[in-house]
């Protein structure tokens, strides 16, 4: 930066500055790009997740028996109950004669919808609550913290149970149950990060300049508090999948016959020793999908955290 002096910034200096800017940017996008360049884990996770997403998008084309996939029982079902994997049915058939491969492939959509809905909603709520609590302090802070602790301590399955009674089975039940518990985690993490940001001098300067509270929150607080939370959210896509599958497995979420991995597993659990393929294949998909997102999330986290650890500060 010795190149910026009065009127003569040099070009090569400018180019180097752009590079340096990218290396030091703390935004979510910049973190992602860096992780991609640096970490093989990221690349693996990215590939896995992209493949899964593509399967979900192309489900109607990939599934050899699309109607089976959606849960309908085929006409010749009675002859096809619990067939072991073969050329016609790569993953075999389930207890009612439906092709498991098709069901699993359609299950990708269900899984992705659930996890993205849950994580994005919880994230929005959590971020909002977290920064409001940290910025306005006082009573709001105490109230929000209390709510966070309250909802953090209730397991999603219990809430799912209650919602099942009120709302019946369905997507809304499982998604809502998870959102109600997950937002509090984001709320807590956002609150903790925002707390230190709110004490920063640039927030003080903004206040002194008369900038409105909401603008300060948007421009200064959220932008700095959100990257680590967003990174966490990516890993959570995997965790939410596991929990959602569990809720559906217990029959507290989506109804039987739905193209949903947890549901399929539930149907096959009694026949685990006789026809393991019914539960095993959806189980594998759950694990692989969760793994894909976790790998991405992990490598992103490595970018954020050891930035403070590894990035030596030679000149500060």
């Amino acid at each position, binding site marked *: 930066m010795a190149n910026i002096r009065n009127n003569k910034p040099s070009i090569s200096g400018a180019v180097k500055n752009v590079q340096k*800017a990218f290396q030091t940017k703390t935004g979510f996008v910049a973190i992602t790009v860096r992780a991609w360049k640096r970490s093989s884990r990221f690349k693996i996770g990215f590939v896995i997740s992209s493949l899964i997403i593509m399967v979900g998008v192309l489900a109607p084309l990939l599934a050899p028996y699309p109607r089976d996939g959606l849960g309908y029982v085929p006409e010749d079902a009675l002859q096809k109950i619990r067939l072991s994997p073969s050329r016609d049915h790569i993953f075999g058939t389930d207890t009612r004669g439906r092709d498991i491969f098709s069901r699993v492939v359609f299950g990708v959509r269900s899984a992705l919808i659930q996890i993205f809905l849950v994580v994005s909603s919880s994230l929005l709520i959590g971020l909002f609550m977290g920064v409001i609590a940290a910025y306005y302090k006082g009573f709001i802070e105490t109230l929000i913290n209390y709510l966070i602790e309250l909802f953090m301590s209730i397991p999603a399955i219990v809430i799912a149970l209650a919602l099942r009674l009120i709302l019946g089975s369905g997507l809304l039940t499982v998604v809502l149950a998870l959102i109600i518990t997950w937002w509090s985690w984001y709320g807590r993490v956002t609150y903790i990060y925002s707390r230190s940001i709110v004490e920063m*001098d640039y927030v003080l300067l903004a206040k*002194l300049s*008369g*900038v409105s509270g909401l603008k300060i929150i948007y421009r*200064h607080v959220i*932008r700095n508090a959100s990257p680590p939370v967003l990174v966490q959210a990516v890993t959570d896509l995997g965790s939410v999948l596991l929990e959602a599958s569990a809720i559906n497995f217990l029959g507290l979420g989506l109804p039987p016959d739905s193209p949903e991995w947890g549901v399929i597993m539930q149907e096959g659990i009694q026949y685990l020793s006789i026809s393991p393929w019914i539960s095993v294949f959806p189980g594998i998909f759950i694990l692989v999908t969760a793994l894909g997102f976790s790998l991405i999330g992990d490598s992103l986290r490595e970018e954020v955290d050891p930035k403070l650890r590894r990035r030596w500060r030679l000149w500060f």
Partner: protein
Amino acid sequence: MRLADLIIVKLENITLGYYTTPRGWRSLFKVKQPVVFNVNLNVVDGEKVVIIGESGSGKTTLLKTILGILPPFEGRVYVLGKSIYDLPAKERRKITRQIGYVPQDPYKSLNPRVKIETVMKEPLEKSNLTDREIKERINEALRLVQLHEKILDYYPMQLSGGMMQRVLIARAIVHEPEILALDEPTSALDVSIQAQVINLLNQIRRKLELAMLTVTHDLAVAQYLGDRVVIIHKGRIVEEGETAIVLSQPSHEYTRLLISSYRASI
């Protein structure tokens, strides 16, 4: 129209501090913890005043109350003639905007996610200036701190400590305040940059005819940034007077201690 005797900042018998929550059952009642006692201070238009104190002396707390963010337990704070804590928050902000504040640590005073352009525009957002006028003001401010316009496109992390400090000074003067308030303006800087900044501050002050209030612990720097010094110790003002005189012939014991410690360590 500026009068030579216009008092920009006046602290009248200020006792000031923070609230703490004691342990146990008493936590229902917050306790007043004063750190500054019975302080009286005036800053006249065009003056350069330095408040000298060591860490824990209460000097930063004084600055906070002048900025309008810490109401005193007792006494009144006048800025440009108005008692700011007797005003509603909005009015108070309007008045304290006349103070250009330069915080201590340049690394904590700039949001790493915003461009310098936003940093410079922020103080002018609430004013009723046209875009063109805003641009002019920003360029003028940058010129005064000897930074090129190109810096507007940069992010804080790309700048060195000295540049960051200059950006902060530019930001403080862009809305044409009556007084500059600086918290340890040189402590986070390298030696050679310190000199640059000190000279720059004096230059700007002369050019814009501002009053300047600096808070520091560094006696040597105080020489250059103040015509008048105020020595604060444990929340009380122990000595006050013309810089040259106080720092060469101190009357209070504490001032003597400060000076002798300084002398002995160089």
